[in-house]
């Protein structure tokens, strides 16, 4: 009897310990490190048995931080991000994709929202482990339902830098992993985050985006825990007009893209496509192509897609 009671107490203690200020403090620490540190390092990205190595460099500057990502394997690609613009350089096809935001900054997991994550995840401390020479503490986010993935985040005990991030599905499989294999903090110059390419006669694909109301479009019902974060009009690829609605539970995000079917060159393939933790679901609604993209389980992406509806604004 005592034993079972003991187990019950352990269980109670575990429940109480989850979401403790200390645990949330670790998420806060990761956030602060990501916002405030200059660093350069090499990380490996893995999904579906594919492995890719990239270099990442972050330069902190009062005038605005700049970050650069270079993919070292396969087709060369380079992405540079500053406060309001992301540029993606594709040297082989001589294309630069420019994603510019009218609004200031990028939506973030703000520190004051970290505690709200506890509504959808049980957050607890996991193992400690050495990664790329750094002693790391794992923070485990266990989803409370099957609509989101679980995460295992390893933060450097000293700096709070996120050294490894595993995304775990409901069956406990790793669907995606980011791991630093080398990292040095500080000593980053402005020169190191400059794009490598001169883009003089490259094709520029401008994807401007600005907040706007997409009249008539919405979800018949929201997915539990996922709330609308923003709604915008934008350009996609070679300047196609599109609407975008973004839903998030505070950690995972799902975007709904809405494009007119008219004038589309390629046939639409309805259904579900997957790439690691990312799922993409395509369907048609009211003469528009709906493409739902998110780092969430297939069931969530599909349910959001199935809920997309158009109601003539005047009939409302």
């Amino acid at each position, binding site marked *: 009897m005592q034993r079972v009671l003991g187990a019950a107490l352990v269980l109670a203690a575990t429940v109480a310990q989850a979401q403790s200020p200390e645990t949330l403090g670790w998420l806060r620490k990761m956030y602060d490190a*990501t916002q405030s540190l200059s660093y350069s390092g090499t990380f490996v990205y893995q999904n579906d048995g594919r492995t890719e190595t990239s270099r990442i460099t972050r330069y902190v500057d009062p005038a605005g931080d700049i970050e650069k990502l270079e993919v070292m394997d396969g087709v060369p690609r380079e992405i540079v991000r500053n406060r309001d613009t992301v540029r993606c350089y594709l040297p082989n096809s001589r*294309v630069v994709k420019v994603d510019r935001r009218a609004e200031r900054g990028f939506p973030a997991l703000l520190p004051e929202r970290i505690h709200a994550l506890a509504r959808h995840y049980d957050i607890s401390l996991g193992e400690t482990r050495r990664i790329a020479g750094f002693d790391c503490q794992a923070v485990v986010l266990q989803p409370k339902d099957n609509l989101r993935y679980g995460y295992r985040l390893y933060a450097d005990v000293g700096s709070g830098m996120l050294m490894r991030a595993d995304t775990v599905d409901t069956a406990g499989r790793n669907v995606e992993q980011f791991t630093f294999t080398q990292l040095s903090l500080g000593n980053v110059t402005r020169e190191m985050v400059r794009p490598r390419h001169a883009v003089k006669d490259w094709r520029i694909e401008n994807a401007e985006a600005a907040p706007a109301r997409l009249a008539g479009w919405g979800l018949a019902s929201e997915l539990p825990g996922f709330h609308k974060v923003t709604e915008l009009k934008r350009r996609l690829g070679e300047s196609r007009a599109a609407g975008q609605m973004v839903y998030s539970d*505070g950690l995972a995000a799902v975007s709904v893209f809405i494009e007119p079917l008219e004038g589309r060159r390629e046939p639409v393939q309805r*259904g579900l*496509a997957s790439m690691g933790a990312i799922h993409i679901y*395509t369907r048609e609604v009211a003469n528009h192509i709906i493409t739902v*993209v998110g780092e969430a389980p297939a069931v969530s992406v599909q349910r959001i897609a199935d809920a997309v509806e158009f109601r003539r604004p005047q009939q409302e």
Partner: protein
Amino acid sequence: MKDRISALMDGELDDKSAAAAIEALESDAEARDTWRTYHVISDALGKSRMLSEGFSERVGAALAKEPTVLAPRRRPAGEPRRWVALAAGVAAVSLVGWLGFAPQQIAVAPVAQAPTKSSPQEARPAVVPLPSGTNDYLLAHQGFSPRVSLQGMAPYVRTVSERGQEARR
């Protein structure tokens, strides 16, 4: 009844008697008490291990996956081990139910979290290749992922890691 429960626990009943015993467990509160008591005794004797971390979640998930297991109809004879698993399932349900009387917090029994709209019922979508503009969608999407605030722009690697899509253009 008591020795049948004991035999059930030890996996010694044949299919028919096991089914009867389990039915009794479902309907008879006294039988369930006996079941619990025997397990507590068995625990006290050190026959089974402590609940491991995530035990109830796993049981909850397993039960959610096998909703029919509590009402098996016909099955070829001679598989007593199955019943042991089934009995363990009942034990888990009883245990979780029982723990519900312990301090409030424990009442968050994961069994209640069995997916409301379980996937088997959900229409299976057609599986298609990634759309041709996948990178554009990912690039447009990624900036809104809160992950970026914890991880810098590393998640952007997804944006472009697609095999050779750009090279084809």
